[in-house]
């Protein structure tokens, strides 16, 4: 039996600001038993859209299983706010949150904040890596069993299980701990979009921190080669989804897409980018998903509750927890490989 693939879909719908639109799309994605949906974001005037994390939080209670992965940019935002917002998305969705890490590289966005000039992409991605590091430390800063509610001693938390993050980097420092308890997934899923031949800094962020890469490659061979290179650096726990345009005007297109998906190797699945989200996600759920299920390439129903469950990723222990496994107490990692705690997932 072939290996089941992982699927995600972009809900981006320029011009739509109402909740009902995004909820309907997410429900279609859930009908297709996709792993997760993404929503892009920026601080530019166009396209017209709401804050991505807000829109996905808004539809969380209306959905039950599908993962929710908003883009949140790291350039003009506060890493502390980003960490607690993604954390809170995990709480309100009961373990379905991820974070598509992006940067703000335009003059337009720099002027909207008026705090710093626009910086070159290598610097922005190096800073993004620091923001992800801080977010992950803050998620870990509450051990899972920090809340004790010990009536006898009057203590709500065991403060020995709350940890200062004490991050000091080139761009910012964050003392911690988080104000928000550790999220249901331990760490929400970190997602990075990459080209086959991307900036070293962006690729380094992905191989060090990402759980999922959304890979854009010019053809199947380039995709396979890029995926092999990424796995060599990141290890087998990285899920690599190949970006795939989705346009399903009719049954012929649906059949062709099924064949294309079945015939592409070397990646863990596909990130669907619909031309017309309303039409194409419904068509995928109704026409393509059943064909993929018949071939054993797509789950017939969700078997897990959290996004990590869908992706087959274990829930990580807090790096600060002094558990029986000594590697859980994370040593600092060299820049190009994962820390022991990350690999031990």
């Amino acid at each position: 039996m072939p290996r089941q693939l992982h699927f995600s879909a972009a809900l981006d719908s320029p011009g739509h600001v109402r909740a009902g639109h995004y909820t309907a799309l997410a429900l279609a994605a859930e009908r297709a038993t996709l792993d997760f949906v993404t929503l892009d974001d920026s601080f530019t005037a166009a396209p017209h859209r709401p804050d991505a994390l807000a829109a996905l939080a808004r539809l969380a209670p209306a959905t039950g299983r599908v993962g929710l992965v908003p883009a949140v940019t790291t350039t003009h935002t506060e890493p502390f706010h980003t960490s607690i917002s993604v954390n809170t998305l995990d709480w309100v969705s009961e373990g379905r949150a991820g974070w598509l890490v992006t940067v703000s590289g335009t003059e337009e966005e720099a002027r909207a904040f008026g705090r710093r000039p626009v910086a070159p992409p290598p610097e922005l991605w190096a800073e993004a890596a620091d923001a992800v590091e801080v977010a992950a430390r803050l998620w870990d800063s509450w051990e899972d069993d920090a809340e004790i509610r010990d009536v006898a001693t009057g203590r709500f938390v065991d403060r020995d299980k709350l940890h200062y993050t004490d991050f000091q980097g080139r761009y910012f420092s964050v003392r911690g701990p988080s104000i928000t308890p550790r999220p249901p997934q331990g760490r929400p899923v970190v997602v990075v979009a990459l080209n086959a031949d991307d900036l070293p800094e962006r690729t380094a962020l992905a191989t060090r921190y990402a759980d999922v890469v959304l890979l854009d490659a010019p053809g199947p061979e380039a995709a396979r080669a890029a995926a092999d290179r990424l796995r060599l650096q990141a290890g087998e726990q990285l899920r690599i989804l190949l970006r795939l345009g989705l346009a399903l005007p009719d049954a012929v297109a649906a059949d062709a897409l099924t064949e294309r998906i079945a015939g592409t190797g070397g990646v863990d699945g596909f990130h669907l980018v619909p031309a017309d989200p309303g039409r194409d996600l419904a068509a995928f759920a109704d026409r393509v998903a059943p064909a993929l299920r018949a071939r054993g390439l797509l789950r017939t129903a969700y078997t897990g509750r959290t996004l990590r469950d869908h992706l087959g990723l274990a829930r990580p222990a807090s790096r600060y927890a002094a558990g029986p496994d000594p590697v859980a107490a994370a040593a600092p990692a060299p820049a190009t490989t994962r820390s022991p705690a990350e690999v031990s997932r």
Partner: protein
Amino acid sequence: MTGRPLKQIHLAAHFPGVNNTTVWTDPASRSQIEFSSFRHLAETAERGKFDFFFLAEGLRLREVKGRIHDLDVVGRPESITVLNALAAVTDRLGLAATVNATFNEPYELARRLASLDHLSEGRAAWNVVTSSDAFTGENFRRGGYLDRADRYTRAAEFVRLAREFWDADGAEVSHAGPQFDVTGTLSLPRPPQGHPVVIQAGDSEEGREFAASAADVVFSRHSTLAAGQAFHTDVKRRLAAYGRKPDELKIMPGVTYVLGDTDADAHERAAEIRRAQVGPRTAIAFLEQVWGVDLSDHDPDGPLPAADPVPDSALVQGRTRLGDPLEIAAKWRATAAEKNLTTRELVIELTGRQSFIGSARTVAAQLDEHVQNDAADGFILVPHLTPGGLDDFVDQVVPLLQERGVFRTEYTGRTLREHLGLPSPGGR
């Protein structure tokens, strides 16, 4: 009373916070972080036809003597994200987030609030806080702190700029001021409410003036009749200078309450709740907050310390200061002597006694009396229990307020502005 028509009461539900008002030791206490708790309280508030649901904020865990304070509830979610999720499970209830104007930037926050207003179809509110200190700043890029005057300068310019972004309806805004020099365009049309409702909680001279100039609602701390009337008079008289009518600013004190079958039952319950709120270690923590020194060896069941407080101590971080320590200590000593109270009894007596105690009928009558006599335009109710702390109020007191003809029996508007009877802001 005059012959004017009855004033309508406005009500809001405050999610129990990270302080000792919240009794987590009660067997009925549930999670402070799971979505189900927020949903329960919000659905209860909407069942009671409340104006809005309110979330507080604190951007660093509180510390005492250099260690995280562990006696009260610790930990909370990011407010705007929770409110967006609550918008999916409620239909009319206003959704108010406390967000700091010091550790955020106008473009981003205006966009997040506009998003909440769109995604909730006109139910967003922003409680503007400015409290900022180097301690909290250690979690943020900007670090540092602003001194008191600059905090309001920044907040006032922040609110003005946010409103410019909202009014622009997707057009470019250029703003050059002392605090902000920005040019940007929101990716959203004008919010359904025009401007999300602005709430302000500061009580200082600058805070009151800021409220009169810029706020739609004041979250006041004056919950007694006389203090409420004085505050009401003072703040409402400031409105004319800004071309505003008294009705355009609603004053809603934060209040606690305890119900019982009879008034006597309620007072008995209130005393029990106060003992649960102020355990021996919490009593010492309050004492240290005033005295500014380590008093962990002090006997909570004995008299107050003989030594005087140390002013300007950094012993306690991340909390609102109670006032001048020497003055407070003098008052505490006088009360302890007069009523012959131990340290813990005194703290129980002087900190956080419930605002309204009695049978449902008594509490409904008192709330109404406060509003009809201009001590308040409504109340932000702070329950002591998560998440069922408002169940009894909604079941027992709300129907009595409705009988008195001073509280809505159904929502008549769709937006929070409509619930509050606030004018629709003019725009471009």
